[in-house]
């Protein structure tokens, strides 16, 4: 029997050793070895509860292993391996360390059995993810990273507040089904749906992911939102608002994706759309709905990573990231393998039969149909059309083919297939997309509930093909309207970006002015106090002369005599200035005071003498 360890710790310990291994080949082997060890570890983990520790009278559980957590654990470790392979050419060890911590904390969330452990890993996840964005080292990435971390800290605070209220109310920190209703559950739900990018809390995703590094975006696309789907499936199955939010989210993401010009931003909006299916399935809450959600999360991680790998390869090779910069350059001639692998991911996300999206997405749609929710069903269907239209038709057409804008002469760009490790990682991911599409049983067997769904029933296949082929026909007809447009789209991040700038202006102009005013006032007061303290005896006289000067100054102004009396005023002014310059001189004051004292003593003596003689 092999002793297993919490998979989160494998990655976290790996993150410590990663910078120490200076030998490049050894380091590369190590990067692939750690996910492999974690996968073997997962295979040996039996269902049950492990690694519990006492902490402040509460029991922390690092390993709650059941079918739900295992299913997510498998796919997280698989994509960790593929993502590491994709990033193998990189020489930035900082980014790899961040990725390891990010993966480790996600696995920590997945196997957490209590709310405290969940929260701790949840925060490590947010903080390590932001370094994958900052490593891009552009100003846009820096700013987007700050917005990312602020949104996630807000979500984390909501989660923590909810957890504390929940623990106080129930006395238990067990992480499991949470009854919907009441402040605690609402706050916890808010924390979860911010990470799941549910509108209106979704803008961080489309804002930050396209600014991340080419390799970092692959990891980002897999972990944060899907771990949010996991915790939602664990705690809030069957919560009806989630079903509606999910359905709206699926269409919302698609609509924005169609307007976008940045190729990775298109894909980022499609994450929102696809996570909409999962959130919707969780909200439906039937066995079919939950199974569909989890299966779709599994498949989504694979094809979405592949989509990000494909577009990332284009950015890596050409340095360009917008459809308007890429269209008409005929990249398909220079990178056909990359294009083919991208299209496999495109077919998968669109739900083309034989690819993995087909076997998972349609489960969620079928779950909506089973409970006869017409609007939900139609929304999800419409989102399917939009997904196919923008990821598989519009985006590749604009990126690899497309027409150059009329009258514009594009300079030649040198492009070639991406490095071998990128292509191998993409090939393996594409293989898994097709493999799970062809043998859905492999996936269905690890789902939490028994699956009674036959994706390849002939009528399913035919209606899916009809839907997709006629979408393609409509695309064909409107192809001239679907070129890139060099714009950005307003989204809910407007609400913190524009007012944020107003706040910045408020600080940098009026408040800064007030600060300077106050500061100079105090400085003047201190300078005056210093100069006056040099000769304290003259202070009353200076004050009187100052007031006198001010008064007659005003008076002459008011009476219109200012011009005539200018000489007199100047004279007074110069005398005041001279007096202020006078320093304290002992001799000036000693004689009069000494004389006074002598006089007083003499008089006192005389008085005493008279008193003594007369009264005697």
């Amino acid at each position: 029997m092999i002793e297993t360890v919490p998979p989160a710790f494998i990655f976290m310990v790996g993150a410590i050793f990663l910078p120490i291994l200076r030998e490049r080949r050894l380091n590369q082997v190590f990067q692939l070895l750690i996910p492999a060890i974690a996968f073997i570890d997962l295979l040996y983990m039996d269902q049950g509860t492990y690694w519990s520790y006492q902490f402040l009278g509460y029991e922390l559980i690092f390993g709650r292993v059941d079918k739900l957590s295992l299913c997510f654990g498998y796919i997280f470790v698989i994509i960790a391996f593929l993502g590491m392979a994709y990033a193998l050419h990189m020489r930035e060890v900082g980014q790899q360390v961040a990725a390891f911590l990010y993966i480790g904390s996600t696995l920590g969330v997945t196997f957490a059995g209590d709310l405290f452990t969940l929260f701790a890993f949840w925060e490590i996840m947010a903080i390590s993810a932001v370094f994958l964005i900052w490593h891009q080292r552009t100003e846009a990435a820096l700013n987007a990273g700050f917005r990312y971390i602020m949104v996630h800290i807000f979500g984390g605070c909501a989660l923590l507040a909810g957890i504390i209220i929940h623990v106080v109310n129930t006395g238990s920190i067990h992480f499991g089904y949470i009854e919907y209703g009441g402040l605690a559950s609402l706050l916890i739900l808010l924390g979860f749906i911010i990470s799941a990018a549910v509108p209106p809390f979704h803008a961080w995703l489309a804002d930050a992911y396209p600014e991340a590094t080419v390799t970092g975006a692959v990891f980002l696309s897999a972990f944060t939102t899907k771990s949010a789907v996991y915790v939602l499936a664990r705690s809030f199955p069957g919560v009806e608002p989630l079903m509606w939010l999910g359905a709206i989210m699926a269409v919302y993401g698609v609509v924005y994706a169609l307007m976008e010009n940045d190729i990775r931003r298109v894909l980022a909006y499609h994450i929102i759309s696809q996570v909409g299916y999962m959130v919707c399935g969780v909200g439906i809450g039937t066995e079919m709905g939950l199974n569909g959600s989890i299966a779709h999360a599994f498949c989504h991680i694979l094809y979405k990573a592949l989509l990000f790998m494909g577009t990332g390869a284009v950015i890596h090779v050409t340095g360009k990231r917008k459809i308007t910069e890429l269209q008409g350059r005929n990249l398909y001639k220079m990178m056909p393998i990359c294009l083919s692998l991208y299209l496999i991911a495109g077919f998968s996300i669109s739900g083309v039969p034989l690819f993995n999206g087909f076997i998972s997405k349609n489960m969620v749609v079928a779950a909506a149909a089973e409970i006869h929710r017409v609007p939900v069903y139609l929304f999800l269907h419409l989102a399917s059309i939009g997904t196919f239209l923008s990821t598989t038709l519009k985006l590749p057409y604009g990126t690899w083919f497309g027409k150059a804008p009329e009258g514009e002469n594009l300079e030649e760009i040198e492009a070639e297939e991406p490095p071998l490790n990128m292509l191998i990682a993409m090939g393996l991911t594409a293989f898994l997309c097709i493999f799970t599409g062809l043998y859905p049983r492999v996936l269905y067997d690890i789902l939490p509930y028994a699956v009674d769904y036959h994706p390849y029933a002939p009528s399913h296949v035919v209606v899916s093909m009809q839907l997709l082929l006629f979408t393609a026909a409509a695309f064909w007809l409107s192809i001239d309207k679907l070129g890139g447009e060099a714009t950005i789209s307003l989204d809910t991040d407007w609400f913190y970006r524009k007012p944020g700038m107003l706040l910045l202006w408020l600080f940098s102009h009026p408040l800064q002015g007030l600060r300077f005013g106050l500061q100079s006032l105090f400085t003047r007061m201190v300078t005056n106090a210093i100069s006056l303290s040099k000769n304290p005896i003259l202070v009353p006289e200076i004050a009187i002369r100052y007031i006198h000067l001010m008064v007659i100054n005003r008076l002459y102004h008011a009476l219109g005599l200012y011009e005539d009396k200018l000489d007199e005023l100047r004279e007074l002014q110069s005398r005041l200035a001279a007096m202020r310059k006078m320093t304290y001189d002992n001799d000036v004051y000693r004689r009069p005071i000494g004389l006074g004292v002598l006089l007083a003593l003499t008089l006192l003596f005389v008085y005493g003498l008279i008193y003594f003689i007369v009264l005697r």
Partner: protein
Amino acid sequence: MARALRYIFLIGIGLSILVGLFLRPEHPHFWWERIPASEAIFGFLGCILLVVGCKFLGHRWLQRYEDYYSD
């Protein structure tokens, strides 16, 4: 290549409609699933709706110049 692709596409469209006429869904949940080629119609109209809708929303309201936030 492009020409071949076009023929394959057209054949696919014809075939999917033709087979769809004979293969009815076993457990229809909604009434429109009984209409022949309903999914095809939905796909075509849905796609047009999305394109037109997005262009309208984008051009009238949401799409801005790229340096909108940096001004």
